[in-house]
């Protein structure tokens, strides 16, 4: 007689304890070990592997992102430098061409001045010689006129 006499139950009843209790406990303990082997361990391994994978992937991605940002910064720096260099080149070239232009202009001006001066000098000298010639001719003519007049008297 293993049933406990609770609430006046002699046979059956709600509170009928018997060998069901220990056997059920053994059954649940066995189930715990079986589920541990078939369920908790394998699923835990898979879940934790995935968590690890996600973690490392994320860390890697973060590292790569930082790298990319650094490269971008470098490139931006380089671009800025290149832009400055090209600006400087353009400025230099502009200044050079300006200088060349001015020099050429000055040269041309001075040349033009020189040739004008020379032309004027030549004109002056020719004018002078022409005047002298004229004066001489006029004097000769005058003399001739005077001679002729004197001779006619």
């Amino acid at each position: 007689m293993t049933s406990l006499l609770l609430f006046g139950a002699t046979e059956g009843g709600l509170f009928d304890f018997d060998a069901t209790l220990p056997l059920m406990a053994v059954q649940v303990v066995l189930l715990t070990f079986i589920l541990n082997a078939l369920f908790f361990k394998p699923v835990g391994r898979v879940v934790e592997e995935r968590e690890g994978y996600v973690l490392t992937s994320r860390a890697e991605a973060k590292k790569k992102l930082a790298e990319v940002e650094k490269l971008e910064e470098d490139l931006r720096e380089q671009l800025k430098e290149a832009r400055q260099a090209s600006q400087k080149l353009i400025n230099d070239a502009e200044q050079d061409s300006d200088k060349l232009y001015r020099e050429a202009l000055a040269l041309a001006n001075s040349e033009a001045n020189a040739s004008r001066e020379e032309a004027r000098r030549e004109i002056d000298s020719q004018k002078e010689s022409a005047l002298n010639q004229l004066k001489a001719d006029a004097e000769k003519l005058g003399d001739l006129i005077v001679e002729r007049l004197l001779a006619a008297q």
Partner: protein
Amino acid sequence: MGSLSFAFPFAELEVGQHLYWEFGNFRLHGQVFMTSWIVIGALLALVVVGTRKMERDPRGVQNLLEFLWDYIRDLARTQIGEKAYRDWMPFIGTLFLFIFVSNWGGALVPWKLIHLPSGELGAPTADINTTVALALLVSLSYFYAGLSRKGLRYFEYYVHPTPIMLPFKIVEDFTKPLSLSFRLFGNILADELVVAVLVFLVPLVLPIPVMFLGLFTSAIQALIFATLAAYYIGEAVEEHH
């Protein structure tokens, strides 16, 4: 209380009748074992199917199993703590799954269609033997957890924070399994009885909301049992400073 039995044309209500199996001097409640084997079989089938081909991208039943695993891990981790929860997760999880599937199996499977010579099939957790067995396992495991982790220092817990607590803590060791077992037993049995009584009073429509309530209660009871078991273990392994 003894055995109660009402016979009506539409339904029959039996309380406290069992199908006895006798092995030598021992007597077993056969209907409890039959349903518990079906519950365990269903659980094992689910687990075997779900873990047969596991991949990093979960598919099909693996999703469900991973959800359950994650749920149980969170439950164990919040109650037991980061350090010790791994050792106790299988036990807590088994309690939760076994009780949950038992309760829902009792509520969802039309056991009445199978006639037994005596007693009737139902949730294994509606039998006091099952719930007391589970509750005693919880008691044993929290003692084991405390003693294995802290040795004899475990008994400091009884005089923490003051020695005045000693009698209360000793009484607690008895009330814990008592309340665990009776809460589960009472809820599941009451649910089955309410449904059965309503079915024989009004055999149509009316019992359906109560059946849904029963499903809700069943799930909550499984969660409460597992959470309290985890909490007791957590209390036993907790370090006092």
